[in-house]
Each structure stands twice: as structure tokens, then as C-alpha cells.
């Protein structure tokens, strides 16, 4: 007899706006407070103390325009946030400060979340959608120098980039970019030569979100239709469809694979969070708590596996935090 799905461990309220972005920062050693950063539609970034389960700061840096991406850069002291005011802000939060140290004016009017990758100590690469419709720009942070601009060839008709993922197999290899586009295709870019290595049409509708497992060279993408598409990268750097999975209701906003590569979570337009096993995409659970579209899901980076959490932010202004499959 299968157990009924668990309830959330706790629910964070108080954003007073739909939640679009979540990011955990819980990896620090014991005296450090585990934190959860959330970006809301009213332009605020809340910093939640997971011990007291209250927001201890609200950062206002995007002129009340929706914040749709938050990420930490090496520890909780530095935060990157992206908003609909066409800016990416870099924050200094160490020692109680809350100031914007730098910002990048992207001129991007869409919703494509940027992707960060640490390439060396103190150096990051950031992929973001640029002003021109189909382009993706790679910047180096914190220097903000442009590394390259990836533009599809004329007549490719990919549409806007919808989601990005920068990854590298290990510290020495070349970083590679995976981008999901409006026409439903996922493209693998070679950044040094600014060329498309492989393109795969995964969906009939725009790709809403994707995630990639570099070790197994397998990735997953979700779109506004009912299908989840799993694809793999072979030795010749070619993308191939591995499997598809049909969902009960259409629409996926976000997909994320847990750090131990055992499970993944999807955020659905049907108000539900679904958990799957990553190996074979076995459906494991459907978490039904929210009363409106779930916009984002994120796994925590706790060093103690038993404390691992999953957070989901929704249009109903709540953030649900779950402890699921933490025992393995």
C-alpha cells in the first residue's frame, strides 16, 4: 500500500506577491544560518532564515519590477538577482550589508533566467539573453567583460531563448552552453567557436525550463505541453532523444535535478509539484499543496543529507518547503 504524499514541512508566507525564484544557501558550517532567497513579483528579494522560518531582510533593487532569478555566487555573502527592469544586480550581503555593488543592463525584456558557472576562484561565466531577439551573451563576472555572443544563423527561426544552462564536465574542460528556445528546440553551443554543435527539437511548444546532468550526459526539458523530454549527449556531442514522459496536465514552469542526481522535481501549471527518479524517470510523488501555478522549485545544498529540503514558490504567494526522500 503506497503511503499518501507527505505534507510540507513548513510554509513560508509573507511575500505578498507571487514567488518567481528560489535559491537555497545552506552549505555553510554549523554556526551559519541556513538561508533561502526568494524573488517575488513585487520586486523584493526576501532572505528567509530557515531556523526561525521568518524573512529577516527584504531587498529592493529592481524598482518594484518582478524578480525572476536569484542565485548565490560562492556563499551567502554575494547574491545575483535578475529582474524585469532589464537588470542583473550583484549584491553584497556579508556582515549584514544589503547593497548593490554592481549591475548589468541586459536590455532583455523576456523571462529567460541567466545561468552562472564558476570557472575559477572568483571568476564566473554568466549566460544571459541579450537585447537582440535570438542572441545569448556570455559575460565574465565580476569583470563584466563579454566573452562571446551566440547568435543562431539566419533563417534558423529559433525564437527567443527561454532557458539556459552553462556547464562543464570537470574543472579543466571547456564550458558548454545548453539553450532551450521558443520553437521547442534545445541547442548545444560551442562557445569558443560560437557555433551550434547540435540541435534537437524536443517539443512543439516553447521550452520552458531545462536541467542537465553533466556526469551522465543526460538532460531533461519541460514545455507548455504535456510532455517531458529526456535527451542525452553522445560522444560526438550530438543530442538525441532518450525518452519522453506524458503528464496528466499540461505546463511545466521549472525543472531541477537534485545535487546527488537521484531525484528531480518539476513545477507545474496545474498547481502540483512532481518528483521523479532520475535514473529511469519513475514517477515518485505528486505534491499537491498550492492553489495556483507553481513557478519555481529548488533543492537545498545542505551538507548533511538528512537535512535536505525542497522548496517550491507559487503564484498563490506561498513558499512550501518539503523534506522528501532525504533518507537515501
Amino acid at each position, binding site marked *: 500500500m503506497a*503511503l*499518501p504524499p507527505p505534507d510540507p514541512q513548513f510554509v513560508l508566507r509573507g511575500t505578498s506577491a507571487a514567488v518567481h525564484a528560489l535559491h537555497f544557501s545552506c552549505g555553510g558550517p554549523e554556526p551559519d544560518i541556513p538561508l533561502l532567497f526568494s524573488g517575488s513579483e513585487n520586486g523584493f528579494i526576501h532572505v528567509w532564515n530557515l531556523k526561525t522560518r521568518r524573512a529577516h531582510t527584504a531587498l529592493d533593487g529592481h524598482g518594484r519590477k518582478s524578480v525572476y532569478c536569484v542565485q548565490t555566487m560562492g556563499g551567502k555573502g554575494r547574491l545575483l538577482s535578475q529582474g524585469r527592469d532589464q537588470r542583473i544586480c550583484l549584491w553584497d550581503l556579508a556582515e549584514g550589508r544589503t547593497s548593490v555593488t554592481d549591475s548589468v543592463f541586459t536590455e532583455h525584456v523576456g523571462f529567460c533566467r541567466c545561468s552562472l558557472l564558476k570557472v575559477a576562484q572568483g571568476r564566473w561565466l554568466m549566460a544571459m539573453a541579450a537585447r537582440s531577439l535570438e542572441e545569448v551573451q556570455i559575460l565574465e563576472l565580476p569583470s563584466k567583460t563579454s566573452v562571446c555572443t551566440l547568435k543562431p544563423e539566419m533563417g534558423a527561426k529559433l525564437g527567443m531563448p527561454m532557458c539556459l544552462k552553462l556547464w562543464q564536465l570537470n574543472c579543466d574542460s571547456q564550458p558548454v552552453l545548453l539553450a532551450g528556445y521558443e520553437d521547442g528546440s534545445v541547442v548545444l553551443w560551442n562557445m569558443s567557436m560560437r557555433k551550434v554543435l547540435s540541435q534537437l527539437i524536443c517539443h512543439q511548444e516553447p521550452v520552458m525550463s531545462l536541467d542537465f546532468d553533466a556526469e551522465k550526459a543526460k538532460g531533461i526539458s519541460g514545455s507548455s505541453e504535456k510532455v517531458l523530454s529526456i535527451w542525452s549527449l553522445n560522444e560526438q556531442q550530438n543530442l538525441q532523444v532518450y525518452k519522453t514522459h506524458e503528464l*496528466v496536465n499540461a505546463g511545466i514552469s521549472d525543472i531541477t535535478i537534485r545535487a546527488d542526481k537521484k531525484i528531480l522535481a518539476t513545477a507545474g501549471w496545474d498547481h502540483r509539484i512532481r518528483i521523479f527518479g532520475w535514473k*529511469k524517470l519513475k514517477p*515518485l510523488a505528486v505534491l499537491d499543496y498550492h492553489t495556483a501555478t507553481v513557478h519555481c522549485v529548488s533543492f537545498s545544498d545542505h551538507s548533511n543529507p538528512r537535512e535536505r529540503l525542497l522548496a517550491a514558490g507559487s503564484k498563490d504567494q506561498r513558499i512550501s518547503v518539503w523534506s522528501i526522500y532525504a533518507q537515501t
Partner: protein
Amino acid sequence: VSFIPGGLDCSISFVSHVLGKVCVHGRQKEIMGVLVPHLTDLTKSDCIWQRICWRLVECVPDRWMEAVVLGFVQGAPRADVLSRLLGNLVVKNKKAQFVVTQKMLLLQYGHTTAVLQNLLGYLSLDSLRRPLMLGVLQELLETWSSSSAVKHSPAEQQLYISKAILICLSHLKEPEIESCRQELLTSMMEGVKCHLDSSLPQLRRLGMVVAESISLKINTEGPVLKFEYEEDDETRELKSLLVQTPPFCVIPSFPDDDRSEKTGAALPLVPENHEKPHTAAPVMPDEELDAELDSDDDLTPYDMSEDKVLKIKAPVYIRDCIEVLTGSRSEDVDKWEATVKALESLVRKNPAATREVSVELAKILLHLEEKTCIEGFVELRQRAQVAVLSTDPIPVAKYLTSQFYSLNYSLRQRMDILDVLVLAAQELSCPKFHGKTEHSGAQKPCIQLLPGSDSSKDWRRIVDERIKSKTRRFDMGQSHVELASRPNEFNSVAGHFFFPLIQHYDRPLTTFDLLGEDHLVLGRLVHTLAILMYLAVNTVAVTAMGKALLEFVWALRFHTDSYVRQGLLSCISSLLLSVPAERILADMTEELLETQSWLGDVMERDPDGDCRRLALQNLLLMENLKKKLEVVPS
């Protein structure tokens, strides 16, 4: 009839006389049947025979020229044959020119498409005759684009002219198109306007096809005019006329070579097809090779039986529905959609609650616009309206009929009101109807003619079919089981549906003038009244309705729009079928006699074929009525 060849100077004129006389006496077919094939063969390559033939026709006296030319045009198998036989007769002889360019094209319209092809092909084949063809095209276009011609000439003539235009267009060459591009454009714009104005769908389609073809010819690059209409045999035939097949036969030696080349080319394709399936096989990973011990198997799934398709709950109370539909909150579109879908069944399940808010609901529904893209929104709205009207007929009918004549409604909304009234009337008057309809979509108006028969049962069936075809509605499953009869609910409300509609038709408003431009709505109104009259059979108000309807029809009987006239004639049919015979003869004798003479007139002189048929039906119905009453008194 065989001629002696060889350079004798025969006197052809005697033969021409004979030919002319025979043709004028009506024996065209026989003589042409023999003459034309003979001459075709003889003139194929022999110039002398060609000249003899030309002399032959040129010498025919003027008074018989028409018959001879007609005979040749109808008898010749192809345009080039006609060209060989007649030569440049049309250029040299005035009478022949008149017959070919004016009489056969503009004054007559009974000839077949093949004859048209021959005629116009003949005109296009010689450079001396081409200017005639261009002149012909201009005149045809003038007729096509004249609004009075579109309104008053019969549909068959308009079809004929359209065909002629299309064939001319197909013969036009580039430099000619260049020179008359501007005129083509102007005529097209005027013509398409008149055609689209017409209430008869066939004429509208004709106009659209011809306009598209003209636009295609004059805009060889760049966007061309494209209308949306349903293709049927007629439009396909018309469009095929635009493509010209070369009038000359291809020399027979070629086809053999072509065929052998094609078979040779076909062979290499076949082995390619066999190879393809191998490469296209998707990469299916062998799941059994996944031999790694997975700790995935340790992850036990939770119970997911609750994971079903997401359904948004619709409100359960009618007042809640009203709130959702009038609410200005644009976020809750899911709820709005669910409400629209659920409204009809809610109204039917809660008649008492509906009656409290019926007029308000009717108002909301009349003004309801599509907020999101739901499938079948128009039908959902219509069904909800019909449900509300059937549940609380009197106040809602009062509201709807008053709105029909109010300012600031679109034509579409007014016609929707009429449709809703008819559907609700049908529901109320028909005992079999349980409020369950199956979706079927609009039916195209079709006129069914049964072979003439006297029994009034057949006419009733015809009228029934006609009425069914004029209503845009859903197909009811015809239940063959005789269900328990119910009181006729239409009885008490028929008058409320009917009289307000008929009241204000002659009062024009700033945005709505039934007797003026909005003759389409007038046509629909007339048809609606006919249906309401028909459904009012066995009600108390039927006689009063009949009298009012007869007066209405009498006032409008000379209307220029044929759709309106067809509606008026349907009104008479409904009247004759619904009002009990005794009442007709008692109360409406004089009017009926006048109507009878009017019907006779329509039957003989109305340009529209359907009007004539309907008038005939009505006269027969009247005859039957008289016979019935003669038989009864004992």
C-alpha cells in the same frame, strides 16, 4: 453534301443561301451535324478549302446570318476548328459581330461552357479579332460590376457572365493585361462590392471567385486577393476555367518518348525508399544493459491516485455565475470559462432561481463577449440564452424583442436575438424536446424539390425542410418513440414572441434601418416570422398572428432583395399551414384573393428561381385548402 474540289470557280453563294434558309428554319443541328465534321477534315491542312468555307459563310444573307453563326459556334468541337471555319467573319460582317460579341454573351445565357470556350477561344486566336475580345471583356466586366444587374438578373445569367469573364481572363496575354490593368482593378472593386452586398450566398461566392481570379491575373507578384468560402463543384469548375489547355494537339510522336523516360526515372527511386527506414530508426537505449545497481529502486513511490486532470470548479448557484460573468477581475479567466460552460445546465436545473434573475441574465448573455479562446463559445452562449428564454419566456421575450429594435447593437447581435427566439419557440412548442441537443454545426441552406405532386403532405414536408434549413441550429436526435404529450407551452407566449417583432419594422433608427440598408436583417426577420407562424399551429393567437403577418407581407411584397421575397413567400406558406382553414376563409377571404393574384404574378415574372417555386407551392397549397373545404361540408 459533297463538294467537287479542284480550282473550279464554283458559285458558292447558292450554297450559302441554302445553308442560311435551312438554318433559319430551325434545322441547324442536322445540317451542322453533317457539314461541320466534313469541313473540319477538309480544312485541316488545305488552304483552298478554308477559303471556300469562308466564302460560304460570308455569302449568307444577313437575315439568316445569326442562325448560321449560332449553328457553327454550337457545332464546332474546338475553338481552333471554329477559327478555321469562320475565319475573320466577325471582323468583316457586322451582323456576325453583333451575334458573337453581344447577343450570345450578354443577351442570352443558355449556352454551355464548351460553347463559351469555343466562342472566346475563337476571338482570341487571331490578332485581328483580339481587339474584339478585349471589347467583350470590358462589356462583360461592366455588367458584372453593375449593382442593378447583380440585384435583378437571375442567378443563372450571372453564373454565365462570370464564366465568360474567367475564360476571357485566361486568354489574356501580358501586354494586354498591362494596358487594361487599371480598368480591371476598378471593375473588380465595384463588382466585388455589389456581389458581397447580396443576400444570396451563391452570388456572394460567384463574386468572390471572379474577384480572386482577376486579382490573380493583375498581381502576378505580391499579395493577391483571397476570400474564405466553402469550395464546391461550382467554384471548382469556375476556377478550372482560368487554366487554359493549349487548343492545338501535341504531335503524337512525343508522348511515347515521355512515357519511357518516366518509367526509367521511376526505377531508381524505389531502392532508395528501401534504404531509408534503416537510418531513421530512433536510438532506443537498451534498458537491460543498465546493469548498475541503482539505489533508485530504494525510492518507494508515494500514492499518486489523486493526480488527475485538473478541473476548475464552476459556481453552483446562478447568482454566483452572474457575479463571475460580470466581474471585472481579469485574472480569474479559468473560472469565467468554467462558468460559461456550465451555465446552460445550471439554468435548466434551477428554473425557479433563474426566473428571479432572468432578464438580468439575458442582458448579460446578449452582451457577453469572448474573453478567452473557448471552443464553441458562440454555441455555448446561444444555448444558455435559449435556456433562459425557455425557462422564463414572457419577460425575457419582452426584453429581447425590445432590444432588437434598439440603438447600438451590431447586426450580428440582432440576428442572434432572432435565432434565440426561434430556438426557444421550437423548444416550447415541441413535446419531444427535452432540452438536450447534440452539436451539429450550421446547416447550409438547401432547397429540396420533390417531383410535382398534389398531396398537401408533400408540400408540408417541403416547407418543413425549408424551415429547417433556414434555421441555424443543432440537430436534434429524432426520437422515434412516441413520448408522453405535454401541454403546448408556446401557446401562452406565442404572441409575446411574435407581435413585438412585427411592430416596429418601418421605424428607422440612426444605426438600424430595416427597410433601407439592413435588408439582410430584414430577410432574417421575415424568415423568423415565418417559423414562428409555423410553430404557432394550434395556439390561440394563431389567427391574429396570421392576419398581422398577411398585412406585413402585403406591405413588403415588392421588395427588391430576393432573400426577403423568399422569406415573404415562406410566411404565406406557414400561414396557410398553421391557421385553421375555417378561420382563413372566414376572416381573410379578400386578402387571400389578392394574395393569390400576387402569387400568380410572382410565379410568372419574378427573376429569382426560388421565388417562383415558392409562389407555385403557395398556390398549390391554396388549391388544396379550397378542395379540403369543399369536401368537408356534408
